[in-house]
């Protein structure tokens, strides 16, 4: 069945589906740059503009839920970060506890906690009005500060995260991870987002509503990549040197004779 579905999905270039108004309640221009890897199935994704940080600088990470149009009534997300390298910037200074920016407009936040020491962020929310589906929505934003040079990862703790239907079935299938390189020179590049598939026996892999499957992007043009012309130049040099040495050897042998 799944094979059949994949085949059907592969036949189309895109999927049109009813969308919501472009400014749903509470959403004030959450934007995320950088290519992301498409995931299939209900997912919790992390995305960020930067992949390279300097010590003392900050970056924002968006937490995106896509239930693939399946209604859920509550969700819990555990986000793990490297406390040695990153610190979460408190979104609300007026409270004693550390919180992140909860942005979901259809669900009420029930837990919003950050443990700087353990490197754990926990958010939970429920929709008291009933179940609702979520389509590619930014539900929270985390601001992190780089503390120390090195590699830092921010990931979803799959075992403690879920997207629950009103019947308490967990439909979460995919999560993604964000990696940062801290220190080591300036400049930013595309975010590294690693999709990780977690097998949930209660759900079936289904085609995405509006996220096309990953496709290959051919990168064959010589000018696309510096390595190609560099290899060509190196080849020309090596051939020239070879010819020169052969000619030199022949000349020497002629002189000997």
């Amino acid at each position: 069945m799944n094979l059949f579905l994949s085949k059907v999905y592969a036949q189309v270039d895109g999927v049109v589906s009813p969308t919501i108004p472009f400014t749903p309640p509470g959403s004030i221009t959450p934007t995320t740059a950088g290519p992301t890897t498409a995931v299939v199935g209900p997912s919790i994704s992390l995305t960020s503009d930067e992949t390279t940080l300097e010590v003392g600088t900050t970056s924002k990470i968006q937490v995106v839920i896509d239930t693939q149009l399946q209604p859920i009534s509550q969700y819990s997300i555990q986000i793990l970060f490297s406390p040695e390298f990153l610190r979460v910037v408190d979104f609300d200074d007026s409270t004693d506890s550390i919180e992140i920016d909860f942005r979901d407009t259809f669900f009420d936040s029930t837990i919003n906690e950050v443990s700087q020491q353990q490197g754990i962020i926990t958010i939970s929310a429920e929709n008291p009005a009933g179940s609702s589906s979520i389509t590619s929505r930014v539900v929270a934003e985390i601001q992190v500060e780089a503390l120390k040079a090195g590699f830092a990862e921010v990931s979803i703790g799959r075992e403690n995260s879920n997207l629950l239907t009103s019947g308490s079935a967990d439909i979460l299938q995919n999560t993604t991870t964000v990696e940062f390189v801290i220190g080591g020179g300036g400049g930013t590049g595309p975010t590294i987002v690693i999709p990780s598939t977690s097998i949930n026996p209660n759900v079936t892999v289904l085609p995405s509503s509006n996220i096309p499957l990953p496709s290959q992007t051919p990168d064959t043009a010589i000018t696309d990549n510096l390595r190609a012309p560099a290899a060509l130049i190196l080849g020309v040099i090596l051939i020239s040197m070879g010819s020169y040495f052969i000619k030199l050897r022949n000349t020497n042998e002629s002189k000997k004779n």
Partner: protein
Amino acid sequence: MRVRKIEQEKVFMNTIIHITLFSDKPTVYTQQKIQEAFTCFDQVVKKYTRFSPKSELSALNNSGGKPMKVSDEFYYLIEYMLELSKLTDGNYDPTIIDLLETYGYGENRNFKELDDPNLYENIRTLVKKRPSPSQIKLNKKNRTVQFAPRQRIDLGSIGKGYAIDLAYDVLEDFPAFMINAGGDIRVKGPKPDGEKWKVGLYKSQLPNQALPKDDYTGIIELENGSICGSGGWARKVRFFHHLLNPKTGFPINEITQTYVIAPKAIEADSWATVLFTMGKSGLQLLRDKGFRGIIIDQKGEISQTAKII
């Protein structure tokens, strides 16, 4: 230069914008254009979100019934929506923010209003006394817009389509591409191999049931055009969704989804809403415009302007 296929996506407007493009131009130029196309979505939100007091739309909504000069672009968008409202005899109403907020569809994220025992009467009362879109006064020469007292406007029904069109203009010198803004789509050309773009229609769903995902309702072949959809179940909370009948103030439940195919995304986007609010009577209007449309009702029955699927 050989034609290369490039795909990129970014999150804007709380959804994923996916661009598939066939380029016969240098990589750097291509990438610059794609990034420029993405920024169109950001610009539209910044200018026209009703949730930022700094947006031009918010300034107009706070104009307190006095004439206000707006930008040429904003004027064009308002004029477009009001013409559509007139053409549809008020079935399309870009000023229903007041109704939506009465249900709790506001900036605060709770829907406590849905439990209000007076909600039904509150809606009925509001529908009787609220100003009509026809009361909005436009002055083309001075580019001014004047609302009736307490009247406000929202670009929710055209914003995404308009942003797609802006992005389309940025990419227009590429031979073929598809812009997919979370399910609203516009394409240029057939693909370089001569094939049309294939767009799957998400299958219909009965109200309050999970979306069946076992198949598509149909697959449409598209060339130089746009297809957009409208449906309440994408964000339905109990009995409420955002597609209201402006004349009753209540969510429309007879229809589950509509799709419209038109040359521009702003047209497909707005007419998908029109078709949802008007139902089958909107099909003739679509034919008159030369657009194509599909209605799927709560029983799963399909009505079309002509045979599409």
